[in-house]
């Protein structure tokens, strides 16, 4: 009975969502086939993926990571170095590097992640962004590998001009589907529950026997690896990497903005957020890029989202629907006060 009940409640909706999503991903570049349209789609999918990957740490675990630009940059540089120094070749072959880059980054961040995750809240946010500054310094200064501020030109693949963007589009689409699948798997497993507990009250979660260090580490590592994969495809697509561009504070902030807009902690929120923001972002960059009004528009958009839609689009809508549904029912009351309400910050100076 419970099995049936659960089945009928979640499964068809979930499968339907997944099919609709994959179907849309497959046909989009055919329907919107112009160069600028496919280009826009490539960036939309990339940001949807980046925002979803960020959500694993920033949303599910509630750790405000600000430095994911570092992992994106690592992926981008790994691709650039792989194609130029290692002689992987061109055409479709560099795509084979994406998976090793993702796995390699996921493993390589473990030591630093362990260090970062010993801190919480504001300190974690601060440290995560310093990691990005660190990676940027490496990119500028280890010139033998990165060519410093000159950057690295990645060979342009010999894809036919009319459908040049398509392979990149499908690479991004596969990565995005993978990222959403990972997020879904995390959410519907023990891991998701544990991350939820960490977000609500980490000390209590640990007291209840949740291996908080381990689950945070897994989420962080997955998130970093996926972010690096997008960086790798991006580098091949743009065919040029340069420190200020590949390791960009705006990239992390953009992904966070999208996750916030769509709804943190939700599965589809980041995708929805990206679908709304990336076109606007590309428009601003195209229209105002040279005059730096672009940055102002970006900041303004961020503030609007935070002040007008603090919960994001998806949760706000769901809440409204739920309220309609339960309007007649009496309001329920929790037996325990939220701890923060009693003592919002009782720490010593």
């Amino acid at each position, binding site marked *: 009975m419970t099995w049936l009940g659960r089945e009928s409640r979640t499964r068809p909706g979930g499968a339907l969502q997944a099919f609709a999503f994959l179907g849309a991903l497959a046909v989009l570049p055919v329907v919107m086939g112009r160069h600028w349209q496919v280009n826009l789609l490539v960036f939309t999918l990339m940001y949807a993926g980046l925002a979803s990957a960020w959500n694993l740490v920033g949303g599910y675990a509630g750790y405000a990571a600000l430095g994911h630009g570092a992992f994106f940059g690592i992926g981008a540089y790994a691709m650039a170095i792989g194609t130029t120094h290692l002689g992987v070749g061109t055409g479709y072959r560099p795509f084979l590097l994406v998976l090793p880059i993702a796995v390699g980054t996921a493993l390589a961040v473990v030591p630093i992640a362990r260090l970062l995750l010993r801190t919480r809240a504001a300190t974690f946010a601060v*440290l995560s962004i310093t990691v990005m500054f660190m990676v940027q310094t490496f990119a500028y200064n280890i010139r033998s590998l990165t060519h410093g501020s000159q950057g690295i030109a990645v060979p342009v693949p010999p894809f036919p001009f009319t459908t040049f963007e398509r392979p990149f589009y499908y690479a991004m689409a596969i990565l995005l589907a993978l990222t959403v699948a990972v997020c879904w798997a995390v959410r519907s497993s023990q891991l998701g529950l544990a991350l939820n507990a960490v977000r609500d009250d980490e000390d209590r979660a640990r007291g209840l026997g949740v291996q908080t260090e381990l689950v945070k580490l897994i989420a962080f590592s997955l998130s970093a690896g996926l972010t690096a994969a997008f960086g790798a495809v991006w580098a091949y697509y743009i065919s040029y990497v340069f420190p200020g561009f590949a390791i960009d504070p705006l990239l992390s902030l953009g992904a966070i903005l999208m996750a916030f807009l769509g709804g943190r902690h939700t599965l589809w929120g980041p995708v929805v957020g990206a679908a709304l923001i990336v076109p606007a972002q590309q428009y601003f960059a195209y229209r105002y890029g040279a005059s730096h009004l672009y940055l102002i528009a970006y900041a303004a958009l961020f503030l609007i989202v935070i002040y007008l839609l603090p919960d994001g689009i998806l949760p706000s809508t769901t809440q409204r629907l739920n309220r309609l549904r339960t309007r007649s029912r009496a309001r329920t009351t929790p037996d325990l006060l939220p701890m923060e309400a009693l003592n919002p910050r009782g720490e010593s100076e």
Partner: protein
Amino acid sequence: MHLIVQATIGGILIGGVYALLASGQAMIFGVTRTVNFAQAIFAILSAYLSYTLFSDFGVDPFLSVLVLVPTMFAFGSAIYIVFLRRLTRSGAELALLVLYAMAIGIQGTLDYFYKTNTRVISPGYTNHSWTVGGYQISEVRLFAFLLAVVVLGSLHAIRQHTKLGRALRATAQNPTAAQLLGVNVERVSAIAMGLGVATAGAAGAVFGMVVPFNGNSQYDLLSKLLSISVLGGMASMPGTIVAAVILGVVESVVAAKISPDWSAFSFLVVLFAVLTVRPQGLFGRRLRGAL
């Protein structure tokens, strides 16, 4: 050896300016529990204003501090009242993102008005220096250091010996208890934000004489500032000052002995080295619950 001592002197002097900037950050964090991700761009903003006052009106940068400190105080308080006040309940994390977004918006505004070429404020005495016992002491840096000492001293006096100072400390230590004794916590937070941004105003005005800057320099400065904050223990003013001077010296010695390219990096190395041993920073106390 001579080189190291020379670099150490320079490092201590510039460390004073960092201390100024970072103490403001610590004050804001202490009272509002918000990391001010816009502290660096506030300093750059002040550097640009000081630049304009100097190049268009001939006002000496050290004199422009007298105008910039109250201006930035008002600016900081206004930002708290308009943007941050309503966020306190939903979490410090949102406030941090708002300030980060604001930093980017301000950078865009500065880039728009001043373009992105690097500038430096150079009054006649920029290259003057005294020689003491064979070591060069740059006039600008010494004055900048003295300014930092004066501002930090005043801040300390306010905190320790005035009613406002007691309210600031009380709010930082236990906001609910402060409120129950009649402290208007929101007003005190706005003042703390104002004071914190005002230190960025003072630091920026002189920073612009020591280091060439543009809007994008905010990231370099922010990375230094954040390292100092974490190392100093986020809310601890004395800790922050010590961390600032240590990092100023490390940076300066690395620049002299290895390469200026790695000087900013040295901040991060020191930071992570310390954190492996003490996650709460050099001077931070382990706080109850989340930090």
